[in-house]
């Protein structure tokens, strides 16, 4: 590097020095902007935790305390005593325990069909499947509600989980299909030569190779169900069946035994509800990124 610079004519050398000075400024500006953004993203998270550990009197004084004088860990316990929050979290987990196997099994089958077989009408079905992503959920909402209402399935988890056992939705199928398409067909053909049946090829050859995509799908399904508000809100109206998301809103609005402000408890509940998601993210960060790379960029 030094040798190259020495050989440069002096004007170009000056230009190079100038450029490097400019680079340093650019770097500094980048860091300043990033740090400013980081503070804006992080502060609300910090404030959730800090508020959740304060007393309501601290929170409602006109002198905001950035940190609690004495951390009130009891706030967290009070959430679980005031409302059946543990039950609601359990219900949310139960729903994901039903939907994740569903989307993995039926989503893979559908993706396998689209990725590996050449049958009459395939292109049409594929376009129709992608088209379902465009149609707002409101269009099917009312008839679906009427259907489940007439089947006496209100206040069950069937309306919330059945879709995951019927392919799991266009996005998941598309993601899995893209992944199967990236697996060399030679592997299927070799297994076929050995007399393996198609289901055997899916089970024995493809699924083991699809683990990263299946993990991504499982995570996305978990996040979707954990976050989902509208479905549980209209299909569940018994408090003991609520999910965490519906329960948190319920907790926001119901009267408690005292009429004291409950901001600190709501913050604690919001934090509790976020913990499983953050934990999952910490454990499997790269699969979050993979979902994007697999689906978004190849459309």
């Amino acid at each position, binding site marked *: 590097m030094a040798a190259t610079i020495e050989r440069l004519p002096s004007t170009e050398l000056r230009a190079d020095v100038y450029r490097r000075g400019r680079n340093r400024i650019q770097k500094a500006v980048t860091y300043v902007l990033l740090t400013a953004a980081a503070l*804006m993203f992080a502060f609300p998270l910090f404030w959730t935790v800090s508020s959740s550990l304060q007393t309501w009197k601290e929170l409602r004084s006109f002198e905001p305390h950035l940190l609690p004088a004495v951390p009130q860990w009891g706030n967290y316990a009070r959430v679980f005593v005031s409302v059946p929050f543990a039950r609601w979290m359990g219900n949310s987990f139960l729903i994901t325990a039903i939907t994740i196997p569903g989307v993995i099994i039926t989503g893979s089958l559908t993706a396998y*069909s689209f990725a590996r077989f050449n049958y009459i009408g395939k292109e049409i079905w594929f376009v129709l499947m992608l088209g379902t992503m465009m*149609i707002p959920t409101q269009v099917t909402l009312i008839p679906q509600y*009427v259907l489940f209402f007439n089947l006496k399935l209100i206040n069950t988890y069937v309306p919330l989980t059945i*879709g995951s056992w019927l392919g799991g939705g266009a996005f998941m199928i598309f993601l899995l299909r893209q992944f199967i398409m990236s697996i060399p067909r030679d592997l299927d053909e070799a297994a076929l030569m050995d007399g393996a049946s*198609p289901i055997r090829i899916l089970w024995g050859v493809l699924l083991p190779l699809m683990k990263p995509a299946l993990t991504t799908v499982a995570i996305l399904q978990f996040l979707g169900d954990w976050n989902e508000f509208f479905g549980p809100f209209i299909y569940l109206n018994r408090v003991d069946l609520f999910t965490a998301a519906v329960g948190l809103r319920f907790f926001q609005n119901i009267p408690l035994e005292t009429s004291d402000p409950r901001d600190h408890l709501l913050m604690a509940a919001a934090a509790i509800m*976020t913990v499983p998601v953050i934990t999952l993210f910490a454990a499997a960060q790269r699969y*979050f990124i993979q979902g994007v790379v697999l689906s978004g960029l190849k459309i």
Partner: protein
Amino acid sequence: MATMANRLKLSGFSEMLTTSRQRRENFYGYLFLTPWLIGFFGLFLGPGLFSLYLSFTKYDVLSAPEWIGLKNYIKMFSDDPLFYTSLGRTFYYAGVGIPLGVFGSMFLAILLNAKLRGLAAYRTLFFMPSLVPIVASVVLWKWLLHADFGIINQWLVDIGWSDPPGWFGDRRWAIPSLIFMGLWQGLGGTRMIIFLAGLQGIPESLYEAASIDGATAFHKLRHVTIPLLTPTIFFNMVLGVIGGLQVFTAAFVATEGGPGFATTFYSLHLYRQAFDYWNMGYAATLAWFFALVIVSLTIWQLRLSRRWVFYYGS
């Protein structure tokens, strides 16, 4: 082999029906497609067509639908002030929120794409808010933006704004509050990751060539980065419009459509008609019109994209 033949377009339609390999493909293809087909007909197409039928009826779930022709459609356009105002508010929310969100995410991704140390930590931090469940996020933002005790208003008072906005409780500020919350949640989420992946797909050689020509960082951004990101911008815009117009949960949990009707977006109006007033027929009309709006906007964006989206190497 049949697959080779298909690739070479040698197989005719009759052949697709007759060869034993093709019969096998049809059989297994449809066998594995069956779960999805059941869902498609049972949960999507069937209900979709049924709701189209309902849109021509008066229906309250308990008694049978009563055919009333175009009355719901006439009512929608001529006798429902909330139809126009809720549609207008939805466009306001999406029209401001989506461009800010998409370009904000792009800006963050460009910053994160600089080859500097420690950026992975920033990326992780930016991503965190998108993990917070939306209901939890609403609870948090209602507290941050509390009119009297919210820390943001306390700061605003400290810096001399004696009469800060009432945010969620203020007609003029309720939608901006939702937009702020949406930006906090969305800027650093998957959209930013999609932009980062897009940025990594830009060949380094283009930047080197620009450097040799003496391009400044701004020139490179203007003439290399942004043109090559147009497919990603387009993709995010399309997804943003489809999602943004359907905004429901945030507004419903934060304000239930209020104060007044300040955050009664289209989907809230529809929800009320369906589940508060049990006007299921009319709600189906609203839903079908909405689908038409979203599909037309998507097709319009696709058309428009030919004028501004640049595909490198094609």
